[in-house]
């Protein structure tokens, strides 16, 4: 068994690293930017500094996320689907479904009782229902992602018919021109993400406890809206953004 393992999750927007030796010793999140290899190395260095360890002590490095192909230091590459399932199961062994909204895609993963992936479904190739969609829409309203949640908190959602990032953007511009309130539009954006997730979840058999992972799950209002749409409570990890990297580290540690 490996004594010290690192998991690096290079996503389209953020790169995450977790150092694990039976418990989490260090973690880091850095923006991926335009150079995923550099982001992966930087996240690892930051996580090691946080853990007070040197790079030489890491015995196994497992890479995941879209950038998993890009780093030669990886001992193994595993998809984010398997890693999110592994991480979520570790944090809550009751997990039978993982909902992950990442920067570039969203997925619903179904787990067996032993934590193995039984089935999964991902959004199709456009940005509908992803973190990127939220980011663009927040930009149209001139707020941050957190600000989008705050705006939406107590508003009655405006109805957004378009899931496509490009069309939704024009729809919002139209709504603003027609005098709709920013709050209602923000609530509409969150509702449209939740509907998308609900649609995805409807295509696999969602059973047992649901763990919500990915950077988007840091936003409490989004968690609330998704839970309301699915009609069940969600388990939200302390840092949902790190679940993929944690899963990667665990897979390295298991080896």
């Amino acid at each position, binding site marked *: 068994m490996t004594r010290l393992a690192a998991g690096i999750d290079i996503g389209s927007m953020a790169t995450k690293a977790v150092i694990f030796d039976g418990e989490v010793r260090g973690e880091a999140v850095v923006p991926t930017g335009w150079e995923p290899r550099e982001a992966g190395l930087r996240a690892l260095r930051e996580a090691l500094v946080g853990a007070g360890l040197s790079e030489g002590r890491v015995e196994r490095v497992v890479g995941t996320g*879209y950038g998993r192909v890009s780093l030669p230091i990886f001992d193994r590459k*595993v*998809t*984010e*689907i*398997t890693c999110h399932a592994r991480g979520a199961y570790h944090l809550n062994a009751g997990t039978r479904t993982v909902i992950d909204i990442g920067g*570039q*895609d969203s997925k619903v993963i179904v787990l067996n009782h032993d934590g*193995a*992936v*039984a*089935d*999964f479904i*991902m959004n*199709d*190739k456009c940005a509908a229902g992803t973190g990127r969609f939220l980011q663009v829409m927040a930009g149209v309203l001139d707020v941050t992602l957190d600000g989008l949640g705050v705006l939406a908190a107590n508003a009655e959602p405006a109805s957004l018919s378009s899931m496509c990032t490009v069309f939704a953007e024009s729809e919002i511009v139209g709504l603003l021109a027609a005098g709709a309130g920013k709050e209602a539009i923000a609530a509409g954006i969150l509702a449209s993400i939740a509907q998308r997730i609900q649609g995805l979840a409807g*295509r696999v058999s969602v059973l047992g406890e649901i763990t919500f992972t990915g950077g988007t799950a840091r936003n409490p209002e989004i968690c609330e809206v998704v839970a309301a749409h699915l009609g069940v409570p969600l388990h939200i990890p302390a840092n949902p953004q790190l679940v993929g990297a944690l899963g990667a580290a665990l897979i390295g540690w298991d*080896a």
Partner: protein
Amino acid sequence: MTMMKAETFAEIASLRERNVIALKEAKEAGARVVGTYCLYSPAELIVAAGAIPVSLCGTSQNPVPVAEKVLPRNLCPLIKSSYGFAVTDTCPYFHLSDLLIAETTCDGKKKMYELMGEIKPLHLMQLPQVQDEAALDYWVLELKRMVRRLENAFGVKITEDALHDAIRLCNDERRSLQALQDVCRQKPAPISGQDLLTVLHNRGFSVNKRDAIALVDRLTKELQDMAVAGVSPFSAKTPRILLTGVPVGIGSDKVVRMVEESGGNIVCFESCGAYKKVEPVEEGTADPLLAIAERYLRIPCSCMSPNQGRFELVERLAREFRADGVIDLTWQGCHTYNIESYSLKKYLQERSGIPFLQIETDYSESDAGQLKVRIEAFLEILHRSLGAT
């Protein structure tokens, strides 16, 4: 991975180019050429009319942008590609065809054929979309209509004897194709899915069916010998995949390529040019046209409703080829296969519970990153159940 290849493979891999020349020469010597797009086109009638049936191009992304000047962008890529090749005159087989045979399989195709008919003489067969007695009666009439069209176009008479001969020839071709695909029942398979697809794709452009049968038989024998000797590009731990769904060919093979680059092996193609094709026509019956009609109407395409035959075929082939997982490939805009995927998944889950992945994509490479995640994650599931880490 070292790819040990059968000697005959190289010969078949270059068949497509050589066939163009052979077809041109045959045509200059007076032969008639009939182009087809779909498994529902009864090749026996074309053969019995003394003409050469050829498959036409429709598996490349290249002519899609030109097709989109006329056709809607969100139409299935196979339809756009077929039309694009026709309108740009870049498919040599289309160019050399005297007549096209087409069918009303899906809405997209039948409306596209209205436009294609302006480019070249096209005979559209009205395909029933249910597989019952009334549909069979109607389909026999459609076959008779096609007989008259061929007879008038080429000034020939299609005799019963010629039909019987054509049935035997096409059945021998089916026997040969089945034997080829059945080598992959061996675990591990002696040929990759990518190479198998190349063979299946290229032989569709053959000018002389007997030559093509002999060539495929020779390859099959080599592959059988390799299997006996334990020669394979794969190991016993390689996840074995059955691919079902829309037609695939060279140029629209990105999912096949990605699966095998990611460490899987496609051991069976339950698709139009592959295992859907192998069921024979009953030989020596009193009414050969009826026998042909019965066999073609049974083809389990998603344009049929209901389409129980496909569910049963996929389940049976997955068992017989010892597949570890099923991938259902559906083209964007192919409503029938896309919708049917839900029912197929449910059918398999209720029976064998075999892991199932639907992939919806088109001919372009724009979604390569996302497809790779799906395919690799699916293989990770299969690896785990195969006991490998």
